[in-house]
């Protein structure tokens, strides 16, 4: 397929949200189109864990020094490495 998902202007990476803020997933940017491990597409893995477009994500915690972030998705608690979280694009949900 090889084409990138569109990224709208109002989108921001998940890492731009502060703790406690909620984002709605718009797209996941794939890894430079290069082979990722042995075909383990991380974007598919993320979706299998529930991060599909339109899903609400709560940023629960962000570790110091650009460490991983903890998010809450569909009632489960996930730890995401910073590099991965930067590729998940969301729109901020205003409360």
């Amino acid at each position: 397929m090889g084409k990138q998902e569109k990224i709208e202007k109002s989108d921001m990476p998940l890492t731009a949200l502060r703790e406690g803020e909620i984002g709605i997933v718009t797209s996941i940017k794939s890894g430079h189109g290069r082979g990722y491990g042995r075909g383990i597409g991380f974007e598919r893995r993320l979706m299998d864990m529930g991060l599909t477009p339109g899903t609400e994500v709560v940023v629960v915690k962000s570790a110091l020094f650009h460490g991983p972030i903890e998010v809450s998705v569909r009632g489960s608690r996930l730890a995401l490495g910073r590099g991965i979280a930067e590729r998940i694009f969301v729109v901020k949900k205003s409360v």
Partner: protein
Amino acid sequence: MSKRKITIALAGNANVGKSVIFNHLTGLHQHIGNWPGKTVERAEGTLHFRSYTIDIIDLPGIYSLSTYSLEEMISRKYIVVERPDLVINVVDASVLERNLFFTLQLIELGTPMVIALNQLDMAKKKGIKIDVEKLEKLLGVPVVPTVAIKGIGIFQLLEKAIEIIEKGQETRRIEVRYGEEVEERIAKLARMIEGIQFWYPPRYAAIKLLEGDEEIERTINRINPQITYTAKKLANELENVYGHFCATIITSERYGIAGCIAREVQKLVPPIKPTKEERLHALTTHKILGYPIMAFLLLLMFYSIFTFGNYTSELLRNFFYNWEFLFADFFGIGVVGKLVWGGIIEGIISGITIAIPYIIPFYFILYFLEDSGYLSRIAFLMDNAMHKIGLHGKAFIPLLLGYGCNVPACLGCRIMETERERLLAAFVTTLVPCAARTVIIFGLVGQFMGIQWALMLYIFNLVVIFVLGRLAFKILPGEPTALIMEMSDYRLPHLKTVVKQTWSRLAEFIKIAFPLIIVGSFVIKLTEVLGLLEPIAASFSFITVMWLGLPAVTGITLIFGVLRKELTLIMLAILLGTTNFAQVLTPIQMIVFTIVIMFYIPCIATIAALVKEFGLKKALLMTVFEIAFAIILGGVTLRVLTLII
């Protein structure tokens, strides 16, 4: 009357209590091995129930039935090709939506199944109430509520399973239906697939083709390339309509259905105060407090293992050596007696005095931490640090194991997602000073030069690990993957399951390490009896004496160190005729000797584990590299220290 044989597979997400159910069902009759040719664990057990002999297979914990990971591929292949009589889908009631996403895929696969709605107690704590009957009706699949940790519902689960196998499953189960645009194209493809002979149900294969599933695509392409061509065309059409990848569209819709069902059957009354588990989670992953807590727990863990280990090891050794005189009476103290005692019996004794006192408590605590959920918090805390050497947080776990023993640590690298990361993690792990090396660091440098020097060596070791890890990360081709990990709720581990996990790990360790330790002991003893040890040691005295500045006898100790590292110190004492090393070694010699020991070779059992996991070539490469590295580093240290001191 002979019993009928049936097979039941357990499938579900990770951390849903699958292995607890497995243990309840199979009791002591279980066998844990590997899937043929794969480094993925396969747990199998048998159970006699009524007129049946039931074979139970515990499939790996997965989130989807795609083929993105080895575990998923193995599970799907098993269900489709081996066709178990029934699949028990273990579902975590406290994370219903995500679990149902997996359930829907099993339903699509058309396999006969029962759902074990597990961890109902945890769901209740979180204020989730589930209408079991409604869930059963919506899915069209029998649902049995269970609290596996307390053994609740296991019998009913088994009865239900047998009932379905005997009567056959009703066919009124839910059909997972996607949006119209998608359905239209699924139907078109399914019709084409119906015409060919294929393992998978046509509708399932059609959906997977649209999702771009490589395995199914490859197989169908061989039978009829026209179908895969059409699938690509249809997928493209969908992508143009929705503006997303086709896989994304289908996954989204499937999750949508799972979400609908979950909302329909569960009532949410979130507790006002955060639960005990949640507060514990917040504390143990706290940005600042999390680290000292982790450090404290880990130190406590190692301290108790070593205290227990040293005491028990001594006790066992005394016990065994009390029998030596009896043995000498029987075999005599001639060559044969020496070979049998020193070669074989001592090999066995040393194996036992390591395995029981150190490995057992180590595994026990480790599994306790894993099943409680704490290991995933450690991975979260350490993710940042591990990224510096191209690994992610999960790699800290084998690294940690390495401080106990490198053998289980190398096997533990299986938790990494890609071959590259497994290799990288294993390499770094073999550099970690295990319990045996700790004995030398503290017994030589710590005792005769002071504890601060011993600790400095540990810090030096960490620096080396960091530098070499970083280098290896740069050299090995491929991109690093990142952490994607669930942190499931804290819970009290099921003790019997932890004990069984410890036992099966111990058995694995014995199988890998014992034969080599015994054969190795025998060979070295034989060399000694034949009087070849000294000539061999002398032949590389240009390294030990000239380059490393050590007494010539250390050459012999280094040979013994291949078997077990702590032997080097024991041999050194024997050969130098004293345990007061300060009389025979200068402080610099002690440090050089310890550094060489720390890095020079993974012991023979570790090499065996490496061969098992990565093949002979890579294992030898690592071994040779580490020998060369240790010798160079030792010599450089000698010269640098001589200059400054």
